[in-house]
C-alpha cells in the first residue's frame, strides 16, 4: 500500500542544490536507510517527503497518490525528529494523544491506542510525566512511541539515536528493528552512522553532495561499491586507496604503484581492458590486509612490507597503521594474536581477490562500468 517513490526530485535553496535529481522507489514495508556525510541532503530528503518543504522539481508519490501539493498533515506519515520535538507543555500521554485528537477520534479509542503503544515501548509508568522529567533514552522512546501510535503509512526518522550514549544506542537499534518487524510499515531512516545503516536497513541509499550514489542491500554495498565515495564511506576503518597503473605481463594483470605492486585476478576485474597502461585507483579494505603469520587458509594473497606507525589493540582484533614509503598511511585489520610491534617493519599479506579498482577521473568502479 505505502510504497514511496521519488521521481527526479530536486531541491534548491537559493544557490545551494541540496538534492539533485533523486529517483528512487521504496517498497511497501521496507526499512530504507539514507546515509551520507554531514550536509549531503539526508534531512532535506526526509523533509521533502514529509511535506515540510516544497520540492523544486520532480514528483513524489506515497502509495498511489502524488503528494507534491498535499500539506504535511494530509500525507499520512509520522516523523521522529533528531531533537525528538516533544511538546514541552504536554505530558507524555498528551504528546501521544495529540495527533489522534486532531484526527477527531473519541476519548475511549485514544486512550486504548495510547495504552497499547505505551505497552509496546514499555512507557506505561511514564505517561503522566512532562518531557523535561524524562531521561534522554526515555525521551527517545516517547518520540518513537508518539509516531507509532498514529499507525501511519510511512515512518520517517531523522537521526533519532544521535543524542544517545553508545550503550543506549545499541539497545535502541535493536528496539527499532523489532518495531519495524512488528508493524510492517515502510520506514525511512536517516543517519550518518554507518553501523546503524548496516545493521538496521533492508536497503541503504548512500548520498553525497545531494546526489544518490548507490542503493543496495548492506552486503552488496560492502561487497561491490559502485564508486570510490561509497567504497570509502562504508566500512570502518575506511578502505585504503593507492594510485597506480594497470599493466599486463604474460598472463598476469598487475597493479603497479610507487611503492608496491600486486598481481590481480582478471576474473574479479571485468572491464579492465580499457585501462591497460592507464592510471587507476586501487582500493583495499583494511580487513583484506592480514598479518602474514595469520592468513586464513584458502586465500590468494600477495606479500606486502610496511613500517608500522601505530597500533590499536581492540581485544578481538588489532588495527595496524603502516607506511609503504609513499608518505601515506594505510590501515590493516589483523588477527588478535599478531605480534607486530610499533616501529618494526612488518610482513603483511593482501587478499588480491578482494581488490577494487576505480577510474581516477570519474571515480566509478571499473567493475561496475560493465562492458561498453
Amino acid at each position, binding site marked *: 500500500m505505502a510504497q514511496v517513490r521519488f521521481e527526479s526530485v530536486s531541491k534548491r535553496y537559493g544557490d545551494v542544490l541540496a538534492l539533485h535529481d533523486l529517483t528512487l522507489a521504496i517498497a511497501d514495508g521496507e526499512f530504507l536507510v539514507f546515509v551520507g556525510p554531514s550536509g549531503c541532503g539526508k534531512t532535506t530528503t526526509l*523533509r521533502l517527503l*514529509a*511535506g*515540510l518543504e516544497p520540492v523544486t522539481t520532480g514528483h513524489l508519490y506515497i502509495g498511489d497518490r502524488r503528494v507534491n501539493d498535499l*500539506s*504535511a*498533515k494530509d500525507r499520512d*506519515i*509520522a*516523523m521522529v*525528529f*533528531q*531533537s*525528538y*520535538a516533544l*511538546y*514541552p*507543555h504536554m505530558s507524555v500521554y498528551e504528546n501521544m494523544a*495529540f*495527533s489522534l485528537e*486532531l*484526527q477527531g477520534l473519541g476519548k475511549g479509542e485514544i486512550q486504548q491506542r495510547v495504552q497499547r503503544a505505551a505497552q509496546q515501548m514499555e512507557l506505561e509508568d511514564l505517561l503522566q510525566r512532562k518531557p523535561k522529567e524524562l531521561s534522554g533514552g526515555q525521551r527517545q522512546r516517547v518520540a518513537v512511541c*508518539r509516531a507509532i501510535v*498514529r499507525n501511519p503509512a510511512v515512518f520517517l526518522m531523522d537521526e533519532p539515536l544521535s543524542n544517545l550514549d553508545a550503550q543506549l544506542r545499541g539497545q535502541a537499534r535493536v528496539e527499532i528493528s523489532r518495531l519495524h518487524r512488528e508493524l510492517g510499515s515502510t520506514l525511512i531512516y536517516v543517519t550518518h552512522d554507518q553501523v546503524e545503516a548496516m545493521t538496521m536497513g533492508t536497503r541503504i541509499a548512500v548520498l553525497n553532495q545531494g546526489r544518490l550514489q548507490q542503493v543496495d542491500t548492506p552486503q552488496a554495498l560492502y561487497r561491490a561499491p559502485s564508486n570510490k565515495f561509497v567504497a570509502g564511506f562504508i566500512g570502518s576503518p575506511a578502505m585504503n586507496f593507492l594510485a597506480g597503473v594497470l599493466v599486463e605481463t604474460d598472463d598476469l594483470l598487475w597493479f603497479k604503484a610507487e611503492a608496491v605492486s600486486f598481481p590481480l585476478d582478471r576474473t574479479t576485474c571485468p572491464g579492465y581492458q580499457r585501462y591497460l597502461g592507464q592510471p587507476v585507483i586501487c582500493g583495499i579494505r583494511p580487513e583484506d590486509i592480514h598479518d602474514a603469520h595469520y592468513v586464513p587458509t584458502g586465500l590468494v594473497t600477495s606479500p606486502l612490507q610496511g613500517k608500522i606507525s601505530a597500533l590499536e589493540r581492540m581485544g578481538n582484533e588489532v588495527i595496524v597503521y603502516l607506511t609503504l614509503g609513499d608518505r601515506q598511511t594505510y590501515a590493516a585489520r589483523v588477527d588478535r594474536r599478531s605480534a607486530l610491534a610499533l616501529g618494526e617493519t612488518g610482513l603483511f599479506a593482501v587478499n588480491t581477490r578482494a581488490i577494487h579498482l576505480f577510474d581516477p577521473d570519474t571515480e566509478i568502479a571499473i567493475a561496475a562500468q560493465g562492458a561498453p
Partner: protein
Amino acid sequence: MPNFLATRLTTWVSQTPIHLALVVLSTLWTLPSLGLLISSIRPPEEVLTTGWWTVFQHPFDFTQYSLENYRTVLSAEGLGQALLNSLTIAIPATVIPIAIAAFAAYALAWMEFPGRQWLFLAIVALLVVPLQMTFIPLLRAYGHLGLTGTFAGLWLAHTGYGLPLGIYLLRNYIGSLPRDLIEAAAVDGATPWQIFTRLIVPLSMPAIASFAVFQFLWVWNDLLVALVYLGGTPTVAPLTITLTNLVGSRGQDWHLLTAGAFITMTLPLLVFLALQRYFVRGLLAGSIKG
C-alpha cells in the same frame, strides 16, 4: 568562632556608607507615597491643618484614621464610575492588541509569504512614531465616524499604538521556539490554527504576560490618549482624567486628592508587584516604545 564574628562585624562596619546611602535613598523614594497614603486616611480637617507626619506622634491612636475620604471620592466625586470606566478601557485595550499581535507575530515568524522580513522591519520602524503625530487626523476622522467619546474608539487607538511593540516582542519570542516542535505538530496533523492555539500560545505565555503587563499599565496610566479621544465626557472618563479634573476643581482639598490618587494607584501596584518579573522583561525589550 569569635574571630569569624569579628570579621563579619568589620565588613559590616566598613560598609556603613553604603548602608547609609541606601537607607537615605530608599526613604527619599518612599516618603512621597507614604505621605499620600497616610493623608488619604486622615479626617479632612486634620489633613488641611497639620502635616501628615504628625500622626507619628501617636502612630497607634487609631481614632485619627478613617476611610471617609474614600467613600466621598468614590461616590460624590464620581471616582467609582471612573474606576469602572478605567477597567472597561484597560482590559479590552490589553486583550485586543495581544490577540492581534500574537496572530501577526505567528504569521511573521512561521508562515511563508513573500516580503515577510521587510514587513516585520517596517512594523518595528513604526516604534519611532510619536503618538502626537497621529492625533489631529485621527481626531477628525473620529468626529466624522462618531467614535469620539466611545470605548470602542479608545480600544482601537490603544491597540494601534500598542501593536508595534507587541508584534516586535512576540515575534522575537515566537520566532525563537524550536522549528522542530512546529514541524512535529504539522506532521501530527495540526492545521495552522491548531498549531497556533495548541502550541504557540501555551509556549509563548511568558512573552504574552510581559506584553500584557506592559500594555495594561500603559493604558491604565494613560492620560493623553484618553483626553484626546474621549474629550470631556464624564460618563466615559477613566481615573486619570477624573483625577486630573479633581486637581483642577478641588485643588486644595487634599483629603480627596490623596484618596483619589491612591485609588488610581492600587490596581497597577498590585499587578506590578504580582508580575514584576514579566514587567521587567517587557521593559527590557520594550524600552523603545514610541
